[in-house]
Structures are given as structure tokens and as C-alpha cells.
């Protein structure tokens, strides 16, 4: 019974992706290759690009550049956004000071920061990392903040009733209590950073997965564009899966719920 369940959990996604590729293939047969290349053409293009030199960098090199930007921005966003968000949710004074500014900055999409980021930091790495950082940072703050605001006051009362001081209430009760929303925030922040890096790389980059897409467009190679897009999807979901595993390790009490 368990085995068949496990089997089903592998078969179902494989089948859904299979059907998707099949539909894609059928449609591509009925339109021109410039409009929509077939799945096979995309695979061939991917294999070609594996050994090709794309604008001076290998395919793996481009992936590496994108990942490097994303990860630097992501860790900076956690380092700054997590404590700030948590403290905003914990301390009324901090909330009153920070949240009005935050409410105005929050609706500005990260892409809107591109021009000013380039103006401030140039077209080199700084501006790209900054844009990813903005996207991830806002999400990190927001999740940490709302997580903290929704910590069950009863748990804080329980801690108080055992004589826990303010610091102990914060670190021993409030922070672990919002671990689930912190993790949701970390995951969303990483996907946001990953989305932003592509936007940033489409403006004046010489390396990165975004550059592959732009190169594909410039060379009028739709298959190359699609390789870039598929790469984005695969790497994005691998990153998300890694974080889900990390959550399982770090929040064992939630693993028991599944």
C-alpha cells in the first residue's frame, strides 16, 4: 500500500510533465519552428549549448553567475530582513517607526528599481545583486513581521507565567513559534530573488541565464530562448526543493504532522 502510494507520488508528476511535453510537441508540429520550436529541438539546442561558448562564457558559467548573484542577495536579505521583520512584529515602537516607510516601499516592484540601481551602482554586479536583494528583502521582512504578529498570545502568556523575561519570551517562544512563516518567507524570498536576477540580467548583462534568453532573442533563435526559460524553471524548482528539505530538518515538529 505504502509502496504503491510512493509509486503514485512519482508517477503523477512524471505523467503531468509528459502530457505537457506531448501537447507542446503536437502544437509545435502545426506551427513554424520560428514561432514555437519542438521539445526535441529545444533538447538539441540545450545539448549544443552545453559545449558552446555563449558570449564568452559556458552554459554552466552563466548558471553560476546567476546563482552567485541570487545567493548573495538572498543571504543579505535574510541577514537584514529577518531580524528587522521579527523585531517589527515584536516591538510596538519599532513597528510604528518602520512600518509606514515599509508600506510605501513595499508596492514598488523590484524591476522598478533597475534604473536607479544602475544609476547608483553601475551596470556591474552591484546593481544586479541590489535588485534581487530588494525583492527578497521585502518578502523576508513581510513574512517575519506577519509571523511575529500572529504568534498566539497564549504561548507568550504561558512563558510569562513561568517567569520568562522579555528576552526569553522573544528568543525561546516567539521566534520558534513563527518558524513556519519564517520558512515560508525564506522560500518566497529565494524564488523572488531568482525571478529578479533574470529581469536584472536582461538589462546590460554579459553573463547569466537572463543573458542567454536575450542572446537567443538577438540571434533570432527561439530554441535558445526556450532553453533559457526551461533552465530558469528547473533551477528555481531545485532551489525551492532544497529549502523544503532544510525546513524538514530544522522544524522536526512539522515533519511529524505530514
Amino acid at each position: 500500500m505504502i509502496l504503491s502510494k510512493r509509486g503514485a507520488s512519482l508517477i503523477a508528476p512524471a505523467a503531468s510533465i509528459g502530457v505537457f511535453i506531448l501537447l507542446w510537441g503536437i502544437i509545435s508540429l502545426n506551427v513554424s519552428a520560428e514561432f514555437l520550436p519542438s521539445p526535441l529541438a529545444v533538447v538539441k539546442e540545450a545539448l549544443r549549448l552545453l559545449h558552446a561558448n555563449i558570449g564568452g562564457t559556458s552554459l554552466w558559467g552563466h548558471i553560476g553567475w546567476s546563482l552567485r548573484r541570487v545567493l548573495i542577495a538572498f543571504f543579505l536579505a535574510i541577514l537584514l530582513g529577518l531580524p528587522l521583520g521579527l523585531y517589527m512584529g515584536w516591538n510596538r515602537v519599532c513597528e510604528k517607526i518602520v512600518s509606514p516607510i515599509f508600506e510605501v516601499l513595499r508596492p514598488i516592484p523590484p524591476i522598478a528599481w533597475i534604473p536607479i540601481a544602475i544609476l547608483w551602482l553601475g551596470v556591474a554586479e552591484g546593481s544586479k545583486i541590489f535588485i534581487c536583494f530588494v525583492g527578497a528583502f521585502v518578502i523576508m521582512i513581510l513574512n517575519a513581521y506577519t509571523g511575529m504578529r500572529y504568534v498566539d498570545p497564549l504561548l507568550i502568556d504561558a512563558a510569562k507565567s513561568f517567569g520568562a523575561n522579555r528576552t526569553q519570551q522573544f528568543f525561546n517562544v516567539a521566534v520558534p513559534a513563527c518558524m513556519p512563516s519564517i520558512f515560508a518567507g525564506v522560500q518566497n524570498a529565494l524564488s523572488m530573488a531568482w525571478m529578479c536576477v533574470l529581469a536584472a540580467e536582461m538589462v546590460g548583462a554579459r553573463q547569466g541565464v537572463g543573458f542567454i534568453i536575450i542572446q537567443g532573442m538577438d540571434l533570432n533563435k527561439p530554441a535558445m530562448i526556450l532553453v533559457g526559460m526551461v533552465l530558469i524553471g528547473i533551477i528555481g524548482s531545485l532551489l525551492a526543493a532544497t529549502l523544503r528539505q532544510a525546513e524538514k530538518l530544522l522544524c522536526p515538529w512539522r515533519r511529524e504532522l505530514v
Partner: protein
Amino acid sequence: MLQDNQNQDARTPGIKIECDNISKAFHVPGQDRLLHVLDRVSLQVYENEFLVILGPGQSGKTVLLNCIAGLIEPSAGETRINGRPITGPGPDRGMVFQRYALFPWKTVEHNVAFGLAVRGVPLKERLAKARHYIKMVGLEGFERAYPAQLSGGMKQRVSIARAYANDPDILLMDEPFGALDAQTRYAMEQELRTIWEKERRTVLFVTNNIEEAIYLGDRVVVMSALPGRVKTEYAIDIPAPRNYTDPAFLALRKKVSDDTELVL
């Protein structure tokens, strides 16, 4: 000097907790009026007594308990423990909440050891103590389980063990069995009484259930609906072990029901 004398005078032998004319009113959010929850409540709880506060759903009994816990400050009047005014929560009081208030990220043993951890008791020592109380509430073998894996009755056992493990003089219990099904509730009432016979503490137990009040209490204080006032009190002199269907029990239950017009 004078201060010292007054403190000594205030401490009547045997009185553990004292509420002296306490009132509590809350601002109604968005309205310019006060909601009077407690109205000049006076109450004494004696050392190692099991006192039950019985009242309808809205009678301020939880607020009264939170005042004694030090989580809420009364608007007027004074609460004292051992003759000293209560200024905040402290490890001399252990609380058991209706919604358990267990920490979901901690295992049973670490939940039970929480109060000791707060006080900086070394890990080995506090886990040893936690295991003793886990055994007392009959949860041996569940030390490493997480609260989400336990039933409601088991969670409340953990909560009772957690309160006991901190070694308080006073246990404050806020409708601890209110969320349990009837069968579990009876079992937990019996168990609590058994535990308390073994490890005597001053207990202040809040409930809206007449049967539970008479089964558990040495004394039952009845509160009115809002604003909460002390209406009357009963000394329960039915000897242990008590039985829910014993004629003396049923007679007392009828009397309390009639008096208080609480319909079950």
C-alpha cells in the same frame, strides 16, 4: 519598621492567596465605555486547599485567575500571595490553560522542562525532573513526542506536568478540561484529584461545570455573570474518593444548581 509590621500583620496564617476588593474594567475597543469584568471581588485561598471558582461563561473568572497569575493588573483592589502584593508572574505559581498552551516545537519532555529552563537549571537535571512528572501524569514513553501527536487529554496531562515540574506553591488552572470530551474529562478529573492527593499544592481551579466543581473542590466559590462578583460559596465535605452518582454528591449538585440557577 512600620512597613515590616504591616506586612506581618497582613499575613494571616494559612492564607496563601488573598484578593482584597479587586475590580477590573477594560476599555471596549472603538467605544467610549468601560466593560466591568470584576466588581469588588474578595477571596481567600488557604494553603494546600483545592478551591474551585464556578461561574457561567462570562463571569470574569479567567480575568480573576490572570490577576492572581500576575498577567493582568486589577483596576482597583489588591491581590496578595503570602501577604505580599502581586506585582507580576512568578515561578511560585504554575498555570494550566484551557487551550493547553504547549510549545508545538518542543517535545513533551522539553515542554515539561520549560519552567526549569527559564530558571537556568542544567539540561540533565531538568530533563530528569521532567521525566518524573511525565511519569506522574501517566505519559511514560511519550517523552520525545511532539504536542501535535497527542490527543487533547494527553496534551492537558503534559500541561499539568509542566506546571508541577516548576515546583510552584500554587497551581492556577483555567478551565483545563473544558475542551475535552466527557469521558476524557471524567478521567482527567479523577487523575488530577489523585495527583493532588499525592503532591499537595494550593490549587485555584476555574470551571463552568458544577459537577466538576463539586468533584474536585474542597471549597467552591460561585461567581455571578458580568460584572463578576462572588455570589456564594460552598464547603464540599464529601470524603474522597468521591463518586459522581453518590446520593450525597447528587444532593449537593442539585442544591448548587438550584442556588446558582446555572443550568447544565
